[in-house]
């Protein structure tokens, strides 16, 4: 049993009574509190502005950056359409055309659609939850800078004629054999951005679970928060297989390890599986958060609560699960057994049910309410119409025999653009119009908005509706030109005209977005009469997020709790003050949102920029095979991150508890499952474990797919060293957990001895594992290559774990980690739980499987 740390428990009345809430706050107290809060949350000025980490700033940068990447990818699409406008055109060369469509797809997916979810959620979620900020503001900022650096690097390659050109899903052997750095830019650049996505997912999940306002139980949280939870969870299981695939792919590109080369036992199908296990859920990762925006807009315009809240939760969770059973429908023509195709076809049809349920819930809400046709609603209507069309062609394509005919034709291009425009682009633009007053404290133009809508909507249909026919008449995707007289000429010309009409619509929208609005009068605080917490925002803007964190008891507090807004503004609720001048937000319990802790959050800093720059170097230099600068850059990135953690996280507080308002005293420090950091590690490691599982899946995939795996007479890993490694990892785990327990029990010296021994044992274990495979020749066959890959994976994780153990040792020596304040060692032991399990699985695969198979 773990001994209690001795930190105080929450004390005082909860929930607050009506009398407590009705008691006014004296005017002078209000003003003094407001000025202290304002000072603590002040946004840095001048050139220091880029050191800001507040969610409102980072979210805005994120959105604008994603928008710029979207516009660049859109320009590429226009060039593609110009090239295809007439037969035998020679506007761009075949090679340039390949770069353009590869980049268009990659940028729209990885630099616009997925980051836009993160951007919008970072920007809006704290407002909807009445939180001051996300729990880890610097992590958001770090993620943003990684995204910016990686995105500029990837998209910039097209200006040097060096862009990837094997299609956005990079199928080997085309992509592995491709000359030039294009494929490496894709692999390393996007891996870097995937890391940022996972960071954002961790941030958003923890934010939704632990930073809701007091009283907001799971059954009354805004639907947007439910979608964020589901999508965050999906990112954790969808992105890691791609990261594992990228890892194998880059090992093949750089060192000629034959993972996807059939002449040496590899299999290109493994890449297709790993890519689409990511790729199909990704479509829903894009779709769900955008439809979540519709779930916020529709109750407001219908002027009534959403119809079928539980049904929408069902459809979000159900879609999230089912979307992982669809990936092979992208691979119907690869020659898998028809019974296997049947499973995926059936699941693809089943996912329509939850997807349809949410559409019907929206329609029911609109029918039952008194709809006010606002601009956001116009875009939502367009979205529903377009998405339904795309969904219907999706049902057709889910039938394998139809897909055999339509595969790789323009019918697919039409289908995917209908789903993505209806499921993502239109709802997001609706969200921009709807939330613009919240974000910028200004309104966008109604007239320009209507122009933008009709141009985009008609241009879109003019462009993509004919493509169904072009595809059915046989035009393949990804051809840079085509002969005349096949009946495709006029269809392509119409599509090109439509593309430019749509571009005019986007130009109108972007102009409306960025045009100066200084002369606009001050807007009303709640221009749409919304019912959720983000509309308690301050006009003119205040950086503190929310003046005091309210006690919420209804789904639409602004509609159903009439006194809430005045009390919130008066600072009647929780955390109305910043006595110590520090940024704080409230941490509440997961299910019922009862206040448990006052969490200090971090403020402006340069360190996240440095950390992102060096992390970028570690990913970007290997593209050009500059391994020494890459290693130096990686080491500097680690130094920056250690400095950042040491100086800003899990600090010993000046007092163990503080007054949180309304008579409630809350602790200021938490360790283990009570702390947000522990939850973040748990969620991160879940994603990490998924990536490792994908590598192990690769091992078994080779066994399934090839008649001789492991090949007869192949050299195996050294069994004695594998056994030694397994033993060392087990001992290291015991020492780490032992250090945690001894430290908590006040036996600091034995705990330090454990923390000295553990890194040595872990390093010995990693060395033994690598030693077991060191004599194998990874370039000769896929069997030694996959053993090497598993050993490297574990060794790198052990390296990270050793750094963490030494960090805790240093913490113990310098008073940052004590028996009372021991969050760091809890997080490190959680990390080692996961890595130890992975290491033991790796030892079993390396040592036992060759015998068993």
């Amino acid at each position, binding site marked *: 049993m773990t001994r209690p740390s001795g*930190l105080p*428990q*929450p*004390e*005082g*009345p*909860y*929930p607050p009574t009506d009398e407590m809430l009705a008691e006014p706050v004296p005017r002078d107290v209000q003003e003094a509190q407001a000025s202290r809060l304002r000072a603590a949350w002040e946004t840095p000025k001048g050139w220091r502005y880029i050191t800001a980490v507040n969610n409102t700033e980072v979210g805005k940068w994120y959105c604008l950056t994603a928008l710029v990447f979207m516009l660049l990818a859109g320009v590429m699409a226009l060039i593609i359409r110009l090239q295809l406008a007439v037969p035998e055109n020679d506007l761009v060369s075949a090679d340039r055309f390949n770069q353009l469509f590869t980049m268009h797809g990659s940028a729209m997916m990885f630099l616009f659609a997925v980051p836009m979810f993160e951007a919008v959620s970072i920007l809006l979620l704290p407002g909807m939850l009445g939180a001051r900020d996300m729990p880890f503001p610097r992590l958001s900022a770090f993620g943003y800078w990684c995204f910016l650096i990686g995105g500029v690097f990837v998209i910039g390659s097209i200006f040097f004629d060096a862009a990837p050109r094997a299609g956005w899903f990079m199928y080997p052997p085309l992509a592995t054999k491709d000359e030039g750095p294009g494929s490496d830019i894709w692999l390393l650049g996007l891996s870097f951005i995937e890391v940022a996505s996972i960071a954002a997912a961790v941030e958003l999940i923890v934010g939704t679970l632990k930073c809701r306002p007091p*009283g*907001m*139980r*799971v*059954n*009354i949280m805004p639907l947007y928060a439910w979608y964020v939870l589901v999508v965050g969870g999906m990112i954790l299981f969808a992105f890691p297989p791609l990261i594992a695939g990228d890892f194998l792919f880059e090992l093949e590109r750089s060192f000629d390890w034959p993972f996807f080369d059939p002449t040496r036992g590899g299999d290109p199908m493994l890449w297709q599986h790993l890519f689409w296990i990511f790729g199909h859920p990704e479509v829903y990762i894009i779709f769900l958060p955008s439809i979540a925006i519709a779930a916020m807009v529709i109750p407001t315009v219908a002027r009534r*609560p959403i119809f079928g*809240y*539980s*049904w929408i*939760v*069902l459809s979000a*969770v*159900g879609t999230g*699960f*089912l979307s*992982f*059973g669809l990936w092979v429908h992208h691979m119907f023509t690869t020659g*898998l*057994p*028809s*019974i*296997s*195709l*049947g*499973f*995926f*076809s*059936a*699941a693809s*049809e*089943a996912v329509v*049910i*939850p997807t349809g349920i949410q559409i019907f819930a929206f329609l029911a809400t609109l029918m039952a309410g008194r709809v006010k046709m606002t601009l956001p609603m116009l875009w939502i209507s367009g979205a529903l119409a377009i998405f339904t069309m795309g969904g219907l062609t999706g049902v057709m394509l889910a039938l394998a025999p139809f897909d055999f005919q339509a595969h790789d034709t323009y019918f697919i291009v039409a289908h995917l653009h209908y789903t993505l425009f209806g499921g993502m682009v239109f709802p997001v633009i609706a969200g921009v119009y709807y939330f613009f007053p919240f974000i910028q404290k200004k309104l966008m133009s109604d007239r320009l908005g209507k122009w933008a809508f009709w141009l985009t909507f008609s241009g879109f249909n003019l462009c993509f509706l004919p493509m169904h026919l072009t595809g059915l008449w046989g035009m393949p995707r990804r051809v840079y030109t085509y002969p005349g007289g096949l009946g495709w000429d006029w269809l392509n010309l119409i599509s090109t005209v439509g593309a430019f009409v749509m571009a005019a619509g986007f130009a109108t929208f972007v102009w409306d977005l960025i045009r100066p609005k200084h002369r606009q009068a001050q807007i009303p605080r709640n221009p749409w009469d919304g019912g959720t917490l983000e509309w308690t925002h301050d006009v003119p803007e205040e950086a503190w997020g929310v003046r005091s964190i309210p006690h*919420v*008891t*209804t*789904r639409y507090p602004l509609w159903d709790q009439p006194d809430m807004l005045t009390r919130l503004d008066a600072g009647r609720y929780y955390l109305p003050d910043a006595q110590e001048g520090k940024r704080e937000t409230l941490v509440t*319990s*997961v*299910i*019922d949102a*009862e*206040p*448990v802790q006052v969490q200090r959050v971090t403020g402006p800093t340069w360190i996240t920029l440095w950390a992102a720059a060096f992390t970028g170097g570690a990913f970007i230099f290997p593209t050009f095979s500059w391994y020494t600068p890459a290693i130096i850059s990686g080491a500097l990135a680690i130094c920056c991150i250690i400095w950042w953690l040491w100086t800003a996280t899990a600090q010993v507080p000046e007092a163990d508890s503080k007054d949180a308002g309304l008579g409630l005293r809350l*602790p200021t420090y*938490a360790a283990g*499952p*009570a702390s947000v950091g522990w939850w973040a590690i748990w969620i991160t490691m879940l994603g990490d474990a998924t990536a490792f599982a994908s590598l192990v899946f690769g091992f078994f995939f080779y066994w*399934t*797919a090839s008649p001789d795996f492991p090949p007869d007479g192949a050299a195996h890993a050294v069994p004695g060293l594998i056994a030694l490694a397994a033993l060392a990892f087990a001992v290291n785990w015991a020492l780490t957990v032992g250090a945690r327990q001894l430290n908590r029990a006040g036996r600091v010296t034995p705990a330090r001895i454990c923390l000295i021994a553990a890194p040595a044992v872990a390093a010995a274990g990693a060395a033994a594992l690598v030693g077991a495979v060191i004599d194998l020749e990874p370039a000769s066959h896929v069997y030694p290559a996959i053993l090497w890959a598993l050993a490297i994976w574990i060794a790198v994780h052990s390296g990270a774990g050793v750094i963490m153990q030494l960090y805790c040792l240093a913490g113990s020596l310098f008073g940052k980690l004590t028996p009372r304040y021991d969050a760091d060692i809890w997080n490190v032991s959680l990390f080692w739980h996961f890595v130890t399990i992975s290491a033991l699985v790796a030892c079993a695969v390396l040592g036992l499987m060759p015998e068993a198979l």
Partner: protein
Amino acid sequence: MTDEHQPRRDEDQKEFAEEHASLFKITLGPLIWAAHFVACYGLVAVTCAKGWDIDAVRSGLLVASGAALVGIGWVGWVAWRQWNVAQTGDFVNRCGRAEDRHHFLGHAAFLLSIISAIGVVFVSLPLVLIGGCQ
């Protein structure tokens, strides 16, 4: 269902103790679907690649489908009881009391068990309709 009490540091553990079954139940139906799906796909893929007896595997998997449906049915029944709509008559559970949260989680788990059952039936159809590995 105690509404008035002081929050404690071990709040999360306590809630999980109280609502542990519900939180688990809300994803239990889909998890059974997922396990069934992976079993069907994985086993059939290996059977076809290694030339095992596909008919025996099909029959075995159909039995597994039956078991999955029974499991989901049980989850749905427990969730239905927890939702308790027959007695409360409250289909919406939009209030902020612990009781509403309890009923809501039952409602969501119940709906998810229905969609999971449909998913299992859909995914079982190829086992019935498609004969072999061709």
